[in-house]
């Protein structure tokens, strides 16, 4: 788990290191799809630095002071919103969070108007979450500042995939060559999509394990192997990523009951035994205990990296805020 080990991990193409301070080639972070392995590695390496900073007594640095960060959340969120807020504050940014309750911003004109209005306030980075796929991209087209996607519908949640990758890299020392099983409600999951893209880009092998109703059509064309049985799918995997069951989206015909789901697809010690002995258990949260994961598995600090994921989340978001605001800061002003 030494730092040197983590840096030798990844996909060979990602071994190129960008000259320090070079500007990132993207204005916005809309999804993992836009990133290549080198860029992913740059973000992860930067996040590693912030892990250290966040563990010190003095967690804040003034590197990004004077910049304004707006978090615009059209969907309820506690941990992602909190994580972005803390990340911004630790970098010295002025952070404002707006929860655009779905009642006030429903119509599209208002949506684009909101973007234009916020843009006029001259933020330096805008973090957006919205319930419809593609909406963050739509809003980004109207913004002069950097836009970071904090989750759009079922499409992507790039910072989640990055923090998952950072967690795995720190625990396993590498990403490439690992076999990762993503289990649960893939159909409704933006976390799954971003993770598939990132893990594939970094040379990991990805399996999906889900009941047939929760596997979207032709998903194997994203470069994954499909399983419907936990026992088969978990065989010899290095990492088990559980997904949250989106109970509010189930509406009757996806699953007969939560208890039956738990019986066949919930992660218990017995099912986990099929994975490698040192398999890592992950969950993006919030967990439904006794639905997708058993409490004793979730709380087993040996195997479970769930708390670590939250910690890495802050570091990854600091890295994203830093990297995506670099072109707003004078040359050489690198955190």
């Amino acid at each position, binding site marked *: 788990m030494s730092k040197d080990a983590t840096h030798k991990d990844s996909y060979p193409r990602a071994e190129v290191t960008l000259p320090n301070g070079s500007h990132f080639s993207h204005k916005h972070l809309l999804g993992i799809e836009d990133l290549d392995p080198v860029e992913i590695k740059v973000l992860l390496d930067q996040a590693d630095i912030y892990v250290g900073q966040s563990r010190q007594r003095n967690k804040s640095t003034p590197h990004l002071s004077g910049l304004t960060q707006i978090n615009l959340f059209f969907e309820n969120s506690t941990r992602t919103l909190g994580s972005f807020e803390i990340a911004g504050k630790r970098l010295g940014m002025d952070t404002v969070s707006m929860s655009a309750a779905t009642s006030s911003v429903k119509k*599209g004109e208002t949506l684009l108007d909101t973007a234009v209005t916020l843009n006029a306030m001259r933020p330096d980075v805008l973090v957006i979450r919205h319930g419809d*796929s*593609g909406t963050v991209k*739509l809003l980004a087209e109207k913004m002069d500042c950097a836009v970071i996607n904090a989750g*759009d*519908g*079922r*499409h992507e949640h790039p910072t989640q995939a990055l923090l998952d990758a950072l967690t795995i890299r720190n625990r396993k020392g590498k990403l490439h060559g690992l076999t990762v099983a993503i289990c649960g409600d893939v159909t409704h999951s933006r976390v799954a999509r971003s993770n598939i893209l990132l893990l594939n880009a970094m040379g990991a092998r990805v399996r999906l394990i889900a009941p047939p109703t929760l596997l979207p*059509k032709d*998903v194997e064309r994203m470069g994954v192997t499909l399983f419907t049985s936990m026992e088969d799918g978990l065989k010899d995997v290095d990492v088990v990523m559980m997904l949250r069951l989106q109970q509010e989206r189930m509406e009757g015909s996806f699953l007969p009951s939560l208890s039956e789901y738990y019986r066949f697809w919930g992660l218990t010690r017995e099912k986990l035994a099929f994975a490698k002995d040192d398999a890592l258990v992950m969950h993006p949260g919030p967990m439904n205990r006794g639905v997708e994961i058993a409490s004793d598995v979730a709380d087993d600090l040996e195997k479970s990296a769930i708390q670590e994921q939250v910690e890495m989340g802050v570091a990854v978001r600091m890295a994203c805020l830093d990297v995506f605001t670099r072109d707003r800061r004078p040359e050489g002003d690198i955190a």
Partner: protein
Amino acid sequence: MSQVTLYTNARLIDPATGMDQLGDILIEHDKIAEIGTIKDNTGLIETVDCGGRILAPGLIDMRTHDVDSKSASAGGITTIILQPDQKTIIDSEDEVERICDRASRKSSVNVRPMGAATKGMKGTELAEMGSMLAAGAVAVSDCRASITNARVMRRMMEYATHFDGLIVNFAEDPALAEGGFAHEGATATKLGLAGIPVEAEVTMIERDALLSRMTGARVHIALVSSAAGIDAVRRAKAAGTKITCSVAPHYLHLNDNALEGYRTFAKVSPPLRGEEDRLALITGIADGTVDCIVSDHDPRSEDVKRLPLAQADAGIVGFETLLALSLSHVHAESFDLMTALKAMTTTPANLLGLKAGRLAKGAPADLVIFDLGKPWVITDTKLKSSEKNTPFDTLPVQGKVWQTIVGGAVVFNS
């Protein structure tokens, strides 16, 4: 004043008879008076030299949601069949008369409505089919709503046989399609969009075919979008079913990849499907499984299009691109010119009982004259339609309308 015009030096194409020859055509008032080699011995008749361009029956567009006649005439369309999904739903004799009346005063092209199949297009009670047909409706349809209830559909078909009425159904099982708006496939999965499976279309086509054989009624599938849907129609036709179907040019040109980047202008209903589906539709036209090509013209403003894909309205404008996009498959030799024109003239005329759609003595002088090979670029800002929601902006095409003639009068002249 008696209006007589002689069009000379035209490549006359009549899909009704298969005629394709160089010749002249004489228009008297609103009728075709003579076809062949015509000499003006008096020297007094107004003569138009077509310069070898194609002169064909004006296009009959069997599925449009808005009158937008300036755009229609620019597209060579002389008769538009208005769908019943207007501000006031066309589900009564009065409403049919009002539409016909208003069109005769305000529209430069012929407008004939389809009546709603059920009252308020709610799918439960039959609308007054007989009265609407008598008042000028050409068929009945619930437009974008599938007639889901099999009992209602069965009774409607039985009832329609008395009037020889045509029932047009939008084939999409609402239960299978619920919540979806994109083709259920790799693109929707990648973009995180809720999908509609192909089977939503196929089950409805199969059921309609079954009920049509049971009752003997004529049924028309409004917009077939998939290979499996085309197969279902092909099988039904082989079994002697009185079933016909349409496609629209955008389904022949685009597949679901057009949604990449969340382009709402590519959001249509039924959704653009996979590449194999697109190719199957083209084959369907070539082998006669597909009967008609329609525009599905549906102007939608920026306000309802510049939205997240899930919230944006479906629909594109199609009048001015109908002919050129269809001809591009003729240029690509996917199907021949006669087949393409027939699907936009004679066949819809026959299905709907219209006198137009042919070049014949005494037939209405509804004509289009166009340059088969003339290249141009589709430019959204240059469209005459009330809104510019086309996914084909900047697409180069071949085949441009030169003149559109409705009832003997020139309504569009490039």
